[in-house]
């Protein structure tokens, strides 16, 4: 399947800086994309989504960018806070739901 269990890449940022987390997806026919946040010991929680007819969507302190040409998705977190420390997963649809490998974000106070 497209969702696999691989070791997580990590990203460390200073509190107050902006964070950018990237994801490459594999299905050019996907029409729906989501970013999830997973804190330690908890289930993933929805952050923001985007449909394939858009290339940018903004939420509260978060922005998702979609580049369908290169099958790339990114999550930008503005003014990163210690509470943003978590693992972030992208997900996309195909004939089922697929998850990226995830990125572990650590915010340094």
């Amino acid at each position: 399947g497209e969702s696999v269990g691989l070791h997580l890449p990590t990203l460390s940022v200073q509190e107050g800086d902006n964070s950018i987390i990237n994801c490459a997806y594999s299905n050019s026919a996907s029409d729906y994309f989501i970013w999830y946040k997973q804190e330690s010991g908890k289930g993933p929680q929805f952050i923001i989504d985007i449909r394939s007819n858009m290339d940018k969507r903004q939420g509260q302190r978060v922005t998702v960018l979609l580049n369908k040409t290169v099958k790339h998705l990114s999550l930008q977190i503005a003014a990163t806070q210690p509470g943003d420390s978590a693992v972030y997963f992208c997900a996309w649809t195909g004939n089922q739901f697929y998850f990226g490998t995830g990125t572990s974000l650590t915010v340094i106070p």
Partner: protein
Amino acid sequence: SQTIHQWPATLVQPVGSPLSLECTVEGTSNPNLYWYRQAAGRGLQLLFYSVGIGQISSEVPQNLSASRPQDRQFILSSKKLLLSDSGFYLCAWSVAGFSYEQYFGPGTRLTVT
């Protein structure tokens, strides 16, 4: 509003023992249901999904099985646990169809000793 429950929250089982994890969803009808496993420091691995009662699709051949005896109940089982079955098990639901977000339960931490 919809809620998803999983139990138990943590479980320690010896190798060779059986397993039964339960997941229930409230506040929605005919959901798609999913079981995922997450090893420490790794991503999500889809194990099973179900689009209706008695309909189970398996993504990874292994010694686990799933059942959906009721519309909003999803059970993950094993007859004999292996050490490699240790991990964080997550149940999720979505509205029917795959083009909608999945909502995750709190997870079950399974340690096989």
